[in-house]
């Protein structure tokens, strides 16, 4: 236990939402992340999937403590990040980096590519000389597939895919141990997505990184992850090894999610059995009692309304939170 790399235990992030009151507001907690636990090991990729509003981005940010946790523990190399003060947290983040979804919006438009990539070095390695820093930036640019002679260009001069490479270079320059990737390829065209996914996988192998890969795209997550966490309304539905999750999904939500993904093969796509979910995501301000998925679940019974299912072992390396997974 104690030698684990990243341990997240019962992490909760609740946002107070004003729901009434005239002078003194009445607030209802929006449970964006509600009791999530997982481990992450060096060199491992954990995919986090779910639909919009399921709390996957909030989870990524709470791991880095970019958003404070309401409750729970984020233990990084044995230290609880939620208990650190600002100065200690900044020191810890040397090993914790993030790549954002929108490649252009996450780069400062008035800084050159070189300055953007060098910024972590200026913060965490202040003793480096200018020449050393430049050398490291150029090497990193080359590594992520950017031409080092573009070092003095500004973000708007790059394409979306290239901007994402700058974002990746910035995250990798300190050789961090853990990188959170928050929908890193969602804004990119298909032909560019594949390039960026391959780059991330190469970097992971070379640097022995742990990746938390947040995405709504189940096909990409299958390709890049070792284990996958399925979130719904802030709660873990299923956490399993990739092979088990894609071959024998146990949770009705995982099954529906997987069957909904269109397959680029006309014969398969037209003949597959699709599990259609009825209705829409319930309001996170007023989630269903018991199992949060029960309002859209074909297997729901009275038990699901009264009792929240806990994650239980359903097979080798496969945990599922459902009362009826055996049915």
């Amino acid at each position: 236990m104690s030698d684990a790399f990243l341990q997240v235990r019962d992490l909760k992030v609740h946002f107070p939402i004003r729901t009434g009151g005239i002078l003194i507001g009445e607030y209802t907690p929006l449970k964006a992340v509600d009791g999530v636990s997982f481990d992450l090991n060096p060199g491992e990729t954990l995919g986090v999937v779910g639909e919009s509003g399921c709390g996957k981005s909030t989870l990524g940010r709470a791991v880095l403590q970019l958003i404070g946790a309401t409750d729970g523990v984020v233990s990084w190399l044995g230290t609880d990040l939620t208990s650190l003060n600002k100065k200690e947290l900044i020191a810890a983040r040397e090993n914790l980096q993030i790549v954002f979804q929108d490649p252009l919006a996450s780069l400062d438009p008035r800084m050159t590519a070189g300055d953007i990539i060098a910024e972590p070095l200026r913060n965490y390695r202040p003793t480096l000389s200018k020449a050393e820093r430049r050398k490291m930036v150029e090497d990193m640019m080359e590594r992520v597939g950017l031409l080092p002679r573009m070092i003095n260009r500004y973000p708007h001069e790059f394409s979306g895919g290239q901007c994402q490479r700058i974002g990746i270079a910035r995250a990798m320059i300190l050789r961090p141990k853990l990188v959170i990737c928050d929908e890193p390829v969602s804004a990119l065209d298909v032909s560019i997505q594949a390039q960026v996914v391959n780059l991330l996988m190469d970097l992971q192998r070379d640097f022995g990184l742990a990746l938390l890969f947040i995405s709504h795209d189940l096909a990409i997550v299958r390709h890049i992850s070792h284990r996958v966490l399925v979130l719904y309304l802030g709660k873990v539905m299923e956490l399993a090894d990739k092979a088990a999750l894609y071959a024998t999904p146990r949770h009705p939500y995982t099954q529906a999610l997987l069957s909904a993904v269109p397959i680029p093969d006309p014969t398969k796509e037209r003949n597959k059995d699709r599990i259609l979910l009825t209705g829409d995501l319930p309001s996170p301000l007023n989630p269903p009692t018991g199992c949060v998925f029960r309002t859209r679940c074909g297997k729901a019974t009275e038990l699901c309304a009264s009792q929240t299912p806990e994650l239980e072992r359903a097979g080798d390396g496969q945990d599922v939170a459902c009362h009826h997974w055996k049915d």
Partner: protein
Amino acid sequence: MTSVLEIDGLTVSFSTPDGDVSAVSDVSLSVEAGECLGLVGESGSGKSQTFMAAMGLLADNGTATGEIRLDGIDLLSANEKKLNTLRGERIAMIFQDPMTSLTPHMKIGRQLSEVLIEHQKVDARTGRARALDMLNRVHIPEAERRLDMYPHELSGGLRQRVMIAMALMCEPEVIVADEPTTALDVTVQAQILDLLAEVKDNLDAAIVLITHDLGVVAGLADRVAVMYAGRIVEQGTVGDIFALPAHPYTQGLLACTPRLDVETEALVTISGQPPNLQNLPSGCSFHPRCKYVVDQCKSERPALEAMDNGHIRACFRPHVEVAQ
């Protein structure tokens, strides 16, 4: 079968401070009644602008040349008044983002019946009844109550159903769906795709499905056209395009799409980036990214040539050498 919508030699260009940019170059397409044509391409390939031109919805700085005929009526030379009698009535569009394409201050019932009141001169009561009927047909629960709601009160999936209902109100001959499920979550996307398949089976309309998602095309389209840098590079039946892609770009697109049904080692990539339309490569626009490139590709542009089964492609390399 005769084509309902025919596009012949369409070129769309936009005048910009940096000179004219061609978004669509010499595109010819046709769709028959009861058929679904999938139009695939990446951002900037011209797939949306082709049909924005057909709907007379190009931005002010855009001009279209060539011919677009709806049942023999030339849409490009038609004036605004003439277009208004056709749009909604005979050709309708489903847009990507249902929030921004519905009028925010108009109740759902009125938005739907407006099309009928405008085109078929029905009274408000009949309009409302037909709107209710249509909401039921697109499987909107509690349809009666939704008639008096505003778009913001509905979820994304329901809004997209309202968009589809609106497009179907006058039973048009052509329905253009521009990325109809891109803004939706995957489980909601599955619901909407099912609805579109139902529409396709029950109506005799020609459907044009514009998308970047090959999986969506695989499920719905009968024929597929692939666009790159403003031109059609390949077109064929859905079976041929997925099983025997004959253009290196189509092959690359299929190979680099991660799949849920197959375990892949490393993703195949198409090197480089989509071209800048202001500064297109010489010859074949795809040549800087193509692994089969020869000298001829750099100087000459390949024309679309016919193969079997109505399959056409624009590539100099012999098909056997390109096929993997």
